[in-house]
């Protein structure tokens, strides 16, 4: 078989296709493949149709292909919906207890589980075993994955796996690749959480909202191991105001939500800027406006996030295009918040948050906790005027009196409307933003892929980064991914655009919000848009690019 496979596994909600997809991802991770898992599910608990699409390749490929190589069907609906995408010589594996079907490999999964005395969830084991055998993956590798991932009833699972493995034939062999070492499989949300932890995160506050919820769940389940505390208060308004309180008292704090929850936080975003309280806000976009589609992706919050906050609000806005970015930026974001005593927004989207990616574990080693600028001395003033706009920090409970104020204030924090002082304080925060701009220049803030001499440049948002990179190779385009959106890395971007004749943005929204944003910096880009809630297929973009 090829070195680039797409495996789709589908069924009803509650049948465990997501876990099965995860097992397959781990199987290929063990073989040293790059893995990308696209999750497609609906906002319901039982029934409906869920599927995972697992793309495995010898190199990094973080995009969906229309054609699939293997289709695993837990129910009839999966065959009905996805069979047309299966290659002619593709592999169909299905549950023969539930589906009547001539072609393909039918397994009487329910029957096997019943005879072995198993429970319904063990259907995952049946299918991953069937897949392993069909693709010629050794039982030893399968066994090690099952042992790692299944904690309860492993003996019975292995027995079932063995029975299935022995009754089937090998249809084809997985291609040999140069195996990848030290690769972790992480969703964007897990990666973001780990990145924050590596920056010393102490408190995470959140109210459940898809697709950001799994950051809260992940951290809550690993509180002891990761030495972090999580809390779910009464609303997103409480979430951010509490987090600002805990940061004021000296603890590294972050919050997360999707657009609707973030909207509720915005008044306090401005509070964080005015009181100069460090806070990291993770905003994972989902389809809007309003409640939109909870489990599908649109990148329609870009305008909102970039403009959020009443008054002249200092803030960083970062964006991640995969789990590796989320890991790096979760870390950097929290450190930047403390270095500049400012709110930082890390923009994710549903697919970056919930899809699974191969992440190079070496990156973890480079992630550090940065010390903020602390006060030493006498006569503390929370808002001391400084050259770089950053006033040293002190916390209540120490030797100093710390006064933080949402009103305009003087250096010691006392409320003021005195013209001269107001002007000085506004200018102090302005200088801080200028320091932040210099920081962006130092950091670079963009990633560039593809040919240096390319005549066409593409700016993707979030999850479209993967598909852009893959196509740029085919078409000799250049991809510019600004992972810092605010302050905008204008100089670096413009250097990269020298010699470029045509600029496109790749966006999952209906109005081309990134193209509009680029216009502010004199960059004219034509937006390529998709707004169905599903990310671009590489095939549909290829057709578009052929016409360029």
């Amino acid at each position, binding site marked *: 078989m090829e070195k680039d496979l797409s495996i789709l596994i589908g069924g009803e909600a509650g049948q465990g296709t997501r876990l099965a997809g995860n097992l397959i991802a781990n199987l290929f991770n063990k073989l040293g493949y790059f893995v990308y898992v696209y999750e497609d599910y609906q906002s319901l608990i039982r029934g409906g149709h869920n599927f995972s699409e697992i793309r495995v390749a010898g190199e990094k490929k973080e995009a969906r292909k229309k054609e699939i190589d293997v289709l695993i069907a837990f129910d009839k609906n999966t065959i009905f919906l996805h069979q047309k995408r299966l290659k002619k010589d593709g592999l169909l594996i299905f549950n023969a207890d539930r589906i009547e079907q001539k072609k393909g490999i039918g397994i009487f999964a329910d029957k096997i589980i019943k005879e072995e005395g198993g429970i319904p969830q063990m259907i995952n084991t049946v299918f991953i075993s069937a897949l392993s055998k069909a693709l010629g993956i050794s039982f030893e590798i399968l066994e090690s994955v099952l042992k790692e991932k299944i904690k309860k009833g492993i003996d019975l699972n292995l027995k079932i796996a063995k029975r299935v493995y022995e009754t089937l034939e090998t249809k084809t062999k997985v291609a040999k690749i140069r195996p990848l070492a030290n690769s972790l499989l992480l969703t964007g949300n897990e990666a973001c959480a780990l990145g924050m932890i590596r920056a010393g995160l*102490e*408190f995470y*506050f959140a109210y459940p909202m898809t697709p950001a919820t799994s950051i809260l769940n992940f951290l809550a389940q690993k509180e*002891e191991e990761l030495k972090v*505390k999580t*809390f779910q*208060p*009464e*609303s997103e*308004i*409480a979430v951010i*105001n*509490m*987090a*600002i*309180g*805990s*940061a*004021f*008292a*000296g*603890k590294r*704090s972050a919050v997360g939500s999707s657009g609707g929850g973030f909207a509720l936080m915005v*008044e*306090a975003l401005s*509070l964080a800027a005015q*009181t100069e309280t460090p806070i990291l806000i993770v905003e994972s976009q989902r389809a809007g406006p309003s409640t939109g589609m909870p489990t599908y992706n649109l990148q329609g919050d870009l305008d909102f996030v970039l403009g959020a906050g009443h008054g002249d609000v200092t803030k960083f806005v970062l964006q991640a295009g995969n789990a590796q970015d989320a890991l790096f930026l979760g870390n950097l974001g929290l450190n930047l918040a403390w270095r500049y005593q400012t709110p930082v927004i890390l923009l994710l989207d549903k697919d970056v948050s919930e899809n699974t990616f191969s992440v190079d574990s070496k990156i973890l080693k480079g992630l550090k906790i940065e010390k903020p600028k602390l006060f030493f001395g006498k006569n503390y003033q929370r808002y001391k005027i400084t050259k770089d706009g950053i006033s040293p920090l002190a*916390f*209540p*409970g*120490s*030797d*100093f*009196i*710390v*006064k*933080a*104020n*949402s*009103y305009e*204030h003087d250096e010691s*924090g*006392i*409320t003021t409307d005195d013209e001269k002082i107001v002007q000085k304080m506004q200018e102090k925060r302005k200088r801080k933003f200028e320091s932040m701009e210099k920081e962006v220049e130092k950091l670079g803030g963009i990633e560039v892929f593809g040919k240096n001499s390319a005549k066409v440049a593409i700016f993707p948002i979030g999850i479209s980064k993967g598909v852009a990179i893959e196509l740029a190779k085919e078409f000799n385009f250049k991809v510019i991914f600004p992972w810092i959106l605010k302050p905008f890395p204008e100089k670096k971007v413009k250097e990269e655009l020298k010699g470029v004749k045509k600029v496109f943005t790749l966006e999952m929204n209906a109005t081309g919000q990134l193209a509009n944003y680029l216009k502010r910096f004199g960059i004219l880009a034509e937006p390529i848009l998709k707004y169905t809630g599903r990310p671009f297929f590489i095939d549909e973009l290829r057709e578009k690019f052929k016409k360029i």
Partner: protein
Amino acid sequence: MKYQTEAKITWCPGCSNFLILRAFQDVLFELEKEGQNPKEIVFLTGIGCHGKIFDYLNLNSFYALHGRSIATAQGIKLANPKLKVICFVGDGDCYNEGIEHLIFAAKRNSDIKVFVHNNRNFALTVSQFTATSPKGFKGSSTPKGSIEEPFNPLELVFSAGATFVARTFTGNFEHLKKMIKEAILHEGFAFLEILQPCITFFDLTNFFKERVYTLENQDFESREKAQEKIREWDYKNDGKIPIGIFYKIKKPTFEQEFFKPSQS
């Protein structure tokens, strides 16, 4: 320690908020004498006339958003449970805008103290009706009188789970001081409503003086007795108005539960 700052006080001359400021300072001196480190006190304010107290006290403090100081306060308490955390809030501030935080802080028994300056109107925005303004209140937004009846905040907070529920009146200075101190010393969520007449827009000084009486021999741990006394004045009827501690029990605090090592 010197508790007063140099900031110019901008309450109306004769405002009952001066009494709260003074009473609180007196209590601070007493507490300091009794061993409380003043640097381990943090107070918060919401937005409204009450909030101006932020500028007048040389203590760790956070001038929070309108209605949100109780949420911010719980964040501070979680981050550093050693700190004594006190919220000065207004009736518009915490019964209107931020009531969710008041109810949930009471429900959790968070170890913070909430002092409500209840002047029964939004005064700093030149007088509009709040959750505890009487029906028919003629404010700038209700020239014909408000059409809503007030609710009884004590009953609400009591039902939500507060472990300390009390009321005082600025017209009884010694009582005011006593209640502030009792509330600060309570371990758990302490709710103290301070009847604080607004002499400019809604002067209820005499109304309260005629009706207020001090609770005596109250059984602090009886829910029935507490409820009975809390309901005696429901902000609508024209009966007597009890002040004092209605209810006070000991219960593990939110922060103790939060940091309790897991059993598993």
